[in-house]
């Protein structure tokens, strides 16, 4: 009871009615991030999700190497291409990671404890998001490291590897993968349920673009509108950072507002008001 008073209260003695909190610092944000990071891998589900991401990146890049070696001199298989191969895997799994960061808390009801220890809920959500970004960067670095190993093997196999590494591709990769993770994260805050968020996420990333393309094909007037709604397509010029001009930026920002900002804003509102059960 060090926080109550300087002297040890004895039975019957006057006991303080107020708690002096002036000497207690709020939980530092960095500590929240460290705890949330630990929570992302200290359960089987979290551990295996991270392990699966790493494993599939190895597998995809390994297959690319094997193809590169057997089909001698396959065109354009350089260091940067390995990172591109990894993107196929991470584009699917990083959103799941973003979802799990949020929903594992609700599915297991640990939110009750988390929000008791830090009642300022936006700080907890922000800490979780920072963990999502950290894990996205870590995934990118793992992809690059594995890519380097695979490229060295390829070099041994075909004699002389191409070590061209496009920094634009790498930065573009980081941004696009962060956006993918963010999409999952945003939907999860809104739905607060793992299966619902995963289903909605994949519906939106694969079904919505198809519907938009179909609608644009049949309705001339819809096509320009569709360009401003289709978040997947708006991200294409981000992959190599070739994005330029008011139109491309406009399409990116408007579609991002529709698919990221709106769900995240509604989701945050829901989390802040939710009765945590």
């Amino acid at each position, binding site marked *: 009871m060090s926080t109550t008073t300087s002297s040890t209260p004895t039975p019957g003695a006057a006991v303080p*009615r107020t708690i002096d909190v002036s000497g207690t610092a709020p939980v530092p944000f960095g500590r929240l991030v460290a705890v949330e990071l630990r929570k992302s891998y200290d359960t089987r589900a979290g551990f295996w999700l991270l392990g699966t991401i790493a494993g599939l990146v190895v597998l995809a890049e390994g297959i690319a190497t094997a193809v590169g070696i057997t089909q001698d001199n396959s065109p354009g298989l350089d260091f940067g291409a390995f990172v591109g191969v990894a993107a196929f895997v991470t584009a699917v799994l990083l959103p799941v990671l973003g979802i799990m960061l949020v929903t594992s808390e609700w599915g297991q009801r640990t939110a009750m404890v988390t929000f008791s220890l830090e009642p300022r809920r936006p700080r907890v959500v922000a800490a979780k998001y920072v963990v999502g970004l950290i894990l996205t960067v870590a995934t990118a670095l793992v992809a690059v490291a594995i890519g380097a190993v695979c490229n060295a093997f390829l070099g041994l196999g075909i004699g002389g590897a191409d070590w061209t590494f496009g920094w634009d591709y790498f930065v573009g990769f980081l941004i696009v993968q962060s956006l993918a993770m963010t999409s999952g994260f945003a939907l999860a805050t809104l739905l607060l349920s793992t299966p619902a968020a995963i289903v909605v996420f994949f519906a939106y990333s694969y079904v919505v673009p198809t519907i938009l393309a179909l609608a644009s094909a049949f309705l001339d007037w819809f096509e320009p509108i569709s360009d401003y709604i289709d978040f997947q397509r708006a991200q294409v010029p981000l992959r190599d950072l070739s994005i330029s001009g008011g139109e491309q930026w406009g399409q990116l920002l408007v579609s991002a507002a529709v698919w990221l900002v709106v769900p995240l804003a509604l989701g945050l509102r829901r989390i802040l008001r939710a009765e945590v059960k």
Partner: protein
Amino acid sequence: MITVEGLTRTYGAYTAVDDVSFVAQPGRVTGFLGPNGAGKTTTMRIMVGLTPPTRGSVTIGGHRYADIPNPGRHVGVLLDASAQHAGRTGREILTLGARTMGLPMSRVDEMLALVSLDDSEAKRRLRNYSLGMKQRLGIAHALLGDPSVLILDEPANGLDPAGIRWMRGLLKGYADRGGTVLLSSHLLHEVELIADEMILIGHGRIVAQGDKESLLREERPSTLVTSLDNDRLAAALQAAGVGVTPAGGGLRVDADPTSVGRAALEAGVVLTDLRSGSRGLEDLFLQLTASTQREQPAPPTAPFAQTQPTQGAVR
């Protein structure tokens, strides 16, 4: 000190917590007692900001819970021992709490020892814990930050008799050192030995509060009476504004035996049995919360089933 003022929480048309006010003093164990669904958990959830109140306010040591920095260092909370990740080990759960609060890891071992969870038990995943073990872990979690206020919802649930005795000693010692302890229960016998103060809640309302002696002292006089014409006697008593409820083959009357005898005389009803119905705490508890007891539907004379608060001597 926990101060609850005019707390109300409604769910649609249903009022789960109805204008609840009380104070839990430092240095004392306050028992929060009421049948299932009385509103204990809801009240405690509002205290720590997990449920927003419809009206009213709670302060802990003079602060709103949300305004307390690093609240785990000041207020220990156990609301639901099962609300933890089933796949985490007991030690990991405490480690996460200790890290959040910025405590040394030695604190985790201290707390595990305090609640008698041994090394092998601490390494098991929560899904393999019995309810009693979860409860011990939850108490350890609440005590991690060496808080000066404890809020425990049904902490004795699932504990064996030895565990309940252990907890009683733990909480008594805690209050003796100046801590504030609020613990809820739906079982009187769990609370009456630990609690210095008791708050009785039924149907979302406080029906009585005070220490054990003052609660019994404040108990309204009560009489058990049987007559040849219970209906006429009941009507006569009710006409005089006295509460009457059927009890077995007779009536329970909220008045002393003399008044009941006099009423019978005036009504010309022959009494076959008349005795004091003065009761212990258990009966008081049942009586005060009668209108909310699922096992005892409200009697037909419901308006007379007294649910007005009995205010014990509250310091």
